[in-house]
Each structure stands twice: as C-alpha cells, then as structure tokens.
C-alpha cells in the first residue's frame, strides 16, 4: 500500500500509467457523455411545466456537482502535498484549480441560461446561485495566489493552505448565505426544491453526472501530464521521450 | 565529555535541489568552528538548519550526544545571527535589548546596562534603531548573543558592514564566549584572528570529495 502511494507520487510513474489508462478513460467519458446527452436531449420526456428548456439540467446539475467536489479534491491534494510532500499531489492541486473554476463557471452560466425562459431572468440573488458565485471566487483566489509566486513549491504550499482554509469555510459560507436569503425572502422562490423526477428523466441525468466526472478526471490527467513534462523537462526520461 | 553538537552526513535539499550534503563535524564546548566554501556552497543554509529555521534535513544531527528527531530541536540552547538582524527599527536600542533579555532564554546575572556598556551603545540607548548606522545595528544585534544563555552561537557573516574596531569587538566576544564554555559556528569571508577549527563545505574545496 505504502509502496503504491509512494509510486503514485512519482511524476514519471504517473505519466506512464496515465498514458496507458487514458484511452480507456476517454472512451468511457465520451460514451457516457454521448449516451447521456442524446438520451437526455432527444428521448427523455418533456417537462410538463418547463417544456424543453429543462433539458439544460443535463449539463447544469453535473457541472454544479463537480464544481464543489472538485474544490474538496483540490484541497485533499493540497493536504497530501503539504503533509507527505508528494510531488504529484502538488501538480494535481495546481491543475485542478482552473478546471474547477471552469466547471463552476459552466454551472453558473447554464443556470443563467436555464433561468431566463423558466423564471424570466438570467440572475436572481438566491442562496444557491450566490454560493456558487462565491465558490467561483474561491477558485479564482487560489488560482491568483498561485500565479503571484515565482517559486513553484511556495506557490503550491500557499495554495494548499488557502484551499484547506476554504474547505473549513465553505460549509459556513453556504450556511450563512442560505440563512441570509431565507431571512429575507421566505419561500418566494422555490427554485431549489425539486419534485421527484421521473425515472425517464433521471437516468440520463445520472449518466451525464458519471460522464462529467469521467470528463473531469480526463481533463485533470491531461493537464497534469502537460505539467509533468514542463517540470521534468531537464530529467533524463523526458529528454528520451522527446527524442523518440 | 559528549560533544555539544555533531553532524553525521548532514544534508539539505529543497525542490529536488541538493543545497549541501555529506557534512560531518563535531563541536565541543569551548570550540569555534569556521565554515568555509564559495558562495552557493550552502553555508548559510547549514547555519539555518542548525538554528532550527529549516526542518526536514537529511542525515543525522545530535545535540549533547542525543540524535535529534525530525522536527525536534534544541531551540533554547542556540542563538542565531544572520544577515537579517532581527532588530526592530521603530524601537529604541534599550527597548530592543529589553525584549531580547525578556523574550529569549537569557543570562540572569547580566544587566542591560552592562551590555550597553560592553557593546559601546551606552550613548545611543534611547535612540530609535532607524537612526543608527549599519555597524551600530550590528552591535545591537550582537547584544542578543551576549544576553542569551545559549551555549551555541551561530553567526552568519558577522563581520559584514563592521569597521575595524567593530571586528575587534566581535572577535573579543566570540573568544570570551568560547572561554566560558560556549561554542560558536560561523561563516565569514574575512580571516579571523581566532583559534578555530575549519569545516570546508563538501564538494567545493580541495579536500572535499566530488559528488
């Protein structure tokens, strides 16, 4: 177990193994996304209230899921790199920040697009949307902090600490934002309460969630591989790889 | 008598880069160790490891015969003086000294007045440090060593920006500390008028092995 953990920390090992696994992962991700999207967009029944516009949840919900999960994954990577000084964890932390931010932005954007036909406005200041926006700011903060340092190790450690502080803070932020909005607009907007979904609508959603998770993993691995090559460009194995 | 501090194959690396490695030395009470080597040989880093600023060294470091665990240190028994002097420029000389005496483990018999006298800062005691010259600041920083009860002094280039008179003063302080059973590890580009052992950073001197 420890050996495996140790190996996982080696960029060279990660590069080789991820290179082998990537085609399968890409296949899984694409299949899930295509199946989920076609099923969800073309074959799932229309919502009796919202019509066809509800179909954007097939992108909105999965990206919203991964946005929050991605922050915690990033923070865990940060913790590992701080405690065990594992190189790969630092790389993961670095590459997952912009990807997470992109996912959060996508969730916000699709939410706005969904909001216009459904509630007549692109943006409402409700608890869920505001929390999502703050999550985007948290991501951008980590990204900005990392960019500010010239020394990579310091950038990673600082970002890891900030991410960890963020994980403690996120529940408090969510709770406080939620509390604030229920204080002011008691149950005027019931957008967050979902009625139980019809299985024909739910199945494609679950497939899309799995597909977006796989896509996220793929994106992180791809970026990590680029980052590995950039960092290890002076080492023998990368030089050999380039010469091939 | 056990050695005060000894290093066995001591090394330190940062971001995969080896700053130094393979350092061996032993220092007993009353000894002065001068570390030599060109710029970039890791002299300052070695002192910082000894001072406990940097954790996570390789090899073995023992204090009074006991090996140190990673993360453990003998903070109470070292006093470090580096390029950054650790004096507050918006406090007076006296206030700085009072802080040194009260905050760090210090010699209970020595009074601030005596130290002011010894460091020739008596006249300046109520002046703000920001008005002092570089050499005067250095003397103030050295008073932290004099006030402390630490047996190991770590001096990183203590003669920088000090006039001839100042150099004599610092040498006297070091000799005095050694004669009272203290130990000193220092780096310097100057030749020092002191009886001391020499340690060449490995990989950089004629005697050192190549890596």
């Amino acid at each position, binding site marked *: 177990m420890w050996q495996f953990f140790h190996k996982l920390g080696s960029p060279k090992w990660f590069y080789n193994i991820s290179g082998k696994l990537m085609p399968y992962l890409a296949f899984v991700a694409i299949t899930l996304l295509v199946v989920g999207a076609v099923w969800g967009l073309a074959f799932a029944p229309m919502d009796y209230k919202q019509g066809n516009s509800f179909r954007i949840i097939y992108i909105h919900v999965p990206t919203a899921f991964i946005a929050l999960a991605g922050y915690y994954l990033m923070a865990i990577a940060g913790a590992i790199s701080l405690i065990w000084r594992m190189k790969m964890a630092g790389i993961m932390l670095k590459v997952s920040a912009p990807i997470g931010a992109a996912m959060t932005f996508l969730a916000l954007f699709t939410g706005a697009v969904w909001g216009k036909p459904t509630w007549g406005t692109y943006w409402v200041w409700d608890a869920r949307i505001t929390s999502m926006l703050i999550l985007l700011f948290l991501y951008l*903060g980590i990204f900005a902090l990392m960019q500010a340092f010239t020394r990579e190790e310091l950038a990673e450690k600082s970002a890891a600490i900030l991410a960890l502080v963020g994980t*403690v803070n996120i529940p408090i932020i969510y709770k406080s934002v939620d509390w604030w909005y229920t204080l002011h607009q008691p149950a005027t907007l019931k957008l967050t309460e979902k009625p139980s979904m019809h299985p024909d609508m739910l199945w494609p959603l679950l497939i899309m969630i799995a597909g977006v998770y796989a896509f996220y993993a793929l994106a992180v691995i791809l970026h990590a591989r680029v980052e590995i090559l950039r960092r290890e460009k002076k080492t023998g194995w990368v030089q050999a790889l380039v010469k091939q | 008598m056990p050695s005060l501090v000894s290093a066995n194959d001591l090394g330190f690396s940062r971001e995969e880069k080896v700053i130094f490695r393979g350092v061996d030395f032993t220092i007993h009470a009353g000894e002065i160790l001068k570390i030599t080597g060109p710029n970039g040989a890791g002299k300052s880093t070695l002192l910082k490891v000894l001072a*406990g600023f940097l954790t996570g060294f390789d090899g073995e470091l023992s204090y009074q015969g006991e090996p140190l665990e990673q993360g453990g240190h003998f903070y109470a028994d070292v006093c470090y003086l580096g390029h950054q002097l650790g004096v507050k420029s918006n406090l007076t000389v006296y206030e700085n000294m009072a802080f040194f005496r009260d905050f760090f483990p210090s010699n209970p018999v020595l009074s601030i007045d005596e130290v002011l006298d010894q460091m020739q800062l008596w006249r300046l005691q109520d002046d703000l440090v920001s008005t002092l010259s570089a050499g005067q600041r250095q003397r103030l920083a050295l008073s932290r060593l004099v006030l402390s009860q630490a047996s190991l002094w770590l001096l990183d280039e203590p003669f920088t920006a000090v006039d001839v008179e100042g150099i004599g003063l610092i040498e006297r302080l070091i000799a005095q500390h050694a004669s009272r059973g203290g130990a000193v590890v220092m780096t310097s580009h100057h030749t020092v008028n002191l009886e001391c052992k020499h340690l060449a950073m490995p990989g950089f001197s004629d005697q050192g092995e190549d890596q």
Partner: protein
Amino acid sequence: MTPWLAFVKKECLQVIRKPSASLLPIFFSLMVTSLFPMVLNLSEQQLQQVAPAVLIMILLLSALMTTEGLFQADFDDGTTALLFASPHSNYLLYGTKVLVSWFSSGFMLSVFAPVLGFILHMPQHSVLTLFVAFALGSLNLIFLGAVGAALTVTLRNTGMLLIFIILPMNVPVLVLLAAILNASNQGLAVVSNYLALLGALTLMTTFLTPWVISAALKINLESQ
C-alpha cells in the same frame, strides 16, 4: 517579566510609535461615510436604509488595509525567523500579534462606529449595537485578513491579491453584520441573537487562524 508579556510590550510599543496606523482607519471611515450623503442625495429614511451596506463595506476595507503588510516588517528584518527559533509557541505569539493589531485599529474604529451611524441617520438605540458589531466584526475580519497577509508575506503590493483571496472567506461575517445592522434599524429584539452568533463565529476564527498564520509564515520562511 514573562516572555509573552515582553512580546506584548514590544508589539504595543511598536503600535504606539506609529499612531497613524490607528488613526488612519478612523479618518478613512469618517471621510468615506460622509461622502455618501453628499453624492447620494437621499432622504434621512433612505440613508438609514443604505447605512448598513455602507458601514459594512467601510469596515471590510479598513480591516483589509490594516492586515496588508501586517507581517512584512517582521519577516524582512528577521524577527519572524527568531520567533520560530525561540522556544515559545508561535500559535500564541501570532494570536497575540493580531490581537494587538486589532486593538489598535479595529477596536479604535469600533469606538467611532456610532459616529458613523449618526452620519447616516441610524436610529439612536443602535449605538451599542454598532460598537459591538464593529468590534466583533473587525476582530473576525482582521484575523481572516491576517491569514492572507501571512500567505503573501514574501510578495510586494499585495493589496488587490489580498482582497481577492480573502474576500470570499469574509462572506459569513458580512452576512451576519448585515443582518445585525438591518435588524437594529428596524428595532428588532433579535439583534442580540445575531450578535451572539457573530461572537461565536469570531471566537472560532480567533482560535483557529493563528495556527494557519504561523504555518503560512513557516513555509515562507523555509523557502527563503
């Protein structure tokens, strides 16, 4: 004198030597607050309604300005390194340092908070609420800001960056302050409950952040 007291004395002396650090936030707040009635051209009633938002933004900005560069001087002159190589708890030292800095800036500003409320026609009964809310709020914001200051201690001109990384973390405090000041405007009794909630949050921040601050300073120190 115990080492801790010596440290407190040193920090206090430094604050006393630089009274502008305490006075500037107060002047800043007074000036900005009086600008609002000038440019907004609102009735007393309307001013009272925007008052919480204005006051919270002012508190937020002055707290961030206080924390920017809080550890820089110590870091650059080698004091930070000496503190780490001292046998004393850095958790305690940094907690103390931030507390002293809060007392000299945030707390002093809190004393003037009722004046700011008066400028914006907050009701008279909100004097005490304003003071307590400002004191607790600034304590919380300064401890959070200190985390950012410690993380960016080796960087220069960090004002914008500091705001960027710390602002999202400030949201719970801002929300609570808004609830408190609005409720105080309306004369609701629930104000004391909200204040208690803010107190609890502040207590948590005060006890947790010094640990993060010293860890952040340590990694910056070690990479020098």
